[in-house]
């Protein structure tokens, strides 16, 4: 009797945690793993989704997209867009965080700046896209200011000329994304003990030496983790580019996400779109693994 009770108790104890986990596991399985597996299987089928009995295609669709110069252009644009965004998010975020953390700035002004600097974060991608489309219109505010300053001679079609479009969307994305870095770094800065700077003052450190020898090393864990996360997120950006340029003109802002979208919903080539999506998945997966390993190592 008692032994039976005890073994039942033990069984309960072993099973209970899995029961608690099960709702979230089912949801993740249905909403994330299932679509992921489906997309991977589509990428190996002919006429996926469109036909009832798709035939196995092997690596045909992968060969097709790898042979497509637009795919390689998209990959390059994605990398440019992502790297520039991350680097500038970090630099601008760092500069603003240092400014907001400085006690040489009047506290009231500091609070106002804190709100102002964080504003871009409050807008959704669609609003940001619309704002920048208006600002960067050939007859928009930016051109008019630049012309009045004498920096440009004629109106520039920022989003509509192949030379400037990629830079313009990257710029808009930089503007939209730096607050995350700013907020994280500011939190990090406030966590650095004041003693470190006082000890450095006594040792005769100049401002730049304090930045190099104390601030940046102390912030390194935050810089690395936020950069990795930003890299993963920015690589998948879709709405901002879709609404500002739609990937054009002449593919000059085509990134992997718009390229995939067009394959799927303009050309209805869902098999190739899936193959392209799998490529994005693999790159993201690589970065994510790197991130997880870094987090574990800490």
């Amino acid at each position, binding site marked *: 009797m008692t032994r039976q009770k005890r073994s039942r108790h033990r069984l309960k104890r072993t099973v209970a945690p899995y029961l608690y986990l099960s709702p979230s596991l089912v949801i993740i399985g249905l909403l994330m793993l299932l679509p992921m597996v489906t997309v991977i299987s589509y990428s190996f089928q002919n006429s996926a989704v469109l036909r009832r009995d798709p035939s196995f295609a092997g690596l045909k669709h992968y060969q097709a997209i790898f042979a497509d110069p637009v795919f390689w252009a998209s990959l390059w644009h994605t990398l440019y867009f992502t790297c520039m965004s991350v680097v500038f998010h970090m630099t601008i975020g760092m500069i603003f965080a240092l400014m907001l953390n400085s006690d040489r700035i009047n506290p009231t002004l500091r609070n106002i700046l804190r709100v102002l600097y964080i504003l871009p974060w409050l807008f959704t991608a669609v609003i940001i896209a619309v704002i920048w489309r208006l600002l960067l219109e050939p007859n928009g505010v930016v051109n008019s200011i630049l012309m009045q300053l004498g920096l440009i001679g004629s109106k520039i079609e920022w989003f509509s000329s192949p030379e400037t479009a990629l830079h313009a969307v990257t710029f808009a994305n930089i503007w939209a994304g730096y607050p995350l870095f700013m907020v994280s770094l500011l939190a990090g800065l406030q966590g650095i003990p004041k*003693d470190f700077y*006082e*000890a*450095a*003052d*006594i040792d*005769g*450190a100049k401002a730049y030496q304090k930045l190099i*020898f104390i601030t940046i*090393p102390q912030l390194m864990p935050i810089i690395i983790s936020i950069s990795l996360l930003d890299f993963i997120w920015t690589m998948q950006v879709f709405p901002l580019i879709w609404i500002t340029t739609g990937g054009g003109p002449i593919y000059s802002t085509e990134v992997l996400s718009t390229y995939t979208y067009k394959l799927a919903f303009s050309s209805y080539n869902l098999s190739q779109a899936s193959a392209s999506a799998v490529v994005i998945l693999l790159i993201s997966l690589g970065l994510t693994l790197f991130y997880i390993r870094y987090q574990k190592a800490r």
Partner: protein
Amino acid sequence: MAEVILENICKTYGNNFRAIDRLSLSIEDGEFLILVGPSGCGKSTALRMIAGLEDITSGSLRIGGVDVVDMPPKDRDIAMVFQSYALYPHMTVFENIAFSMRLTGKPKAERKKRVDEIAKTLQLTSLLDSKPANLSGGQRQRVAMGRAMVREPAAFLMDEPLSNLDAKLRVQMRAEITSLQKQLGVTTIYVTHDQTEAMTMGDRVAVLKGGVLQQVDTPKRLYESPVNAFVAGFIGSPSMNLFEGTLTGDELTAGTFAIQLRDAAFARRPGLRSYAGRKIVFGIRPEHLYDSSLESGRKYQTIPAKVTSIEELGSEHIVHLNIDAVRVDSGDPDAVRDFGLASNAVAKFEPESAVRSGSEIRLALDDTKLHFFDPETHLAI
């Protein structure tokens, strides 16, 4: 190496709070001076002003004959050991100690030579490649010392450097710092709230209260002749017992008992006679109260007391007592803790004492060790 001279130094904050009020101190070349006082007395502020981490509102400060009031910390030729040690966690012990030399761009070979020398003095040689996180509290403390020593400053400033260590290690590091200071012969100003550190480490001790210097003297003289009731209560552990009494002729009365005073007591204090017939504050240290049933207590006069509780420490008994007299607050917030609610006096008895909690005893008291203070000003008579 140099002398440090503070003259009428004041520190007033924006809200008109005066943290330091006309502090004048003269610390000789090679001297070990302790700044002590209860928390919030301004001792750390004073040290940070000497370091240059806090502005000096008014007054003059000279280190090695140079007026440093308007100098940044790095030009004052001082080194500071912080309470938290302020070691850089991302640097090794070597890099931490060599940091100031790295800033000034000293060549690598010179840095290594210098750090090796210091590591040898502080027994850190085997730890030079470790990060601070992997060191024990005592080792971190030594690295902090090393970082101060490497600059060969004119003066060391130490801000409660032992307060993060456990009791045993503190005793050991106390001795280490004292002998290191003697060996290096560098002027040292050491801030602490621990009066044991104050009594054992310094050549002289400066007692601060509410930003005002109370007394600066050798530990022995602070203990034997405190200038006021605050210093009397603050120096010594447990604190001195302070009571209100009335002086009538040669007799000191308080409550239901009287203590006979000898001529010597009046001879030593010419002012004492003038308090005849008036209220007076008298004090006696716990170690000058005895158990009258023991040999050591037989030769003294006794007063009645009730034992409220006993702490048996092995080498001595700390006995909390209640005597029929009004206790006087010395102004030291820590002193209240020594007494508690039920008792108003503390005595240190020999371990042979057989008194029990709750019993009525005769308390022997060495009347030559009495201290007298003015009831209004609390100044020593």
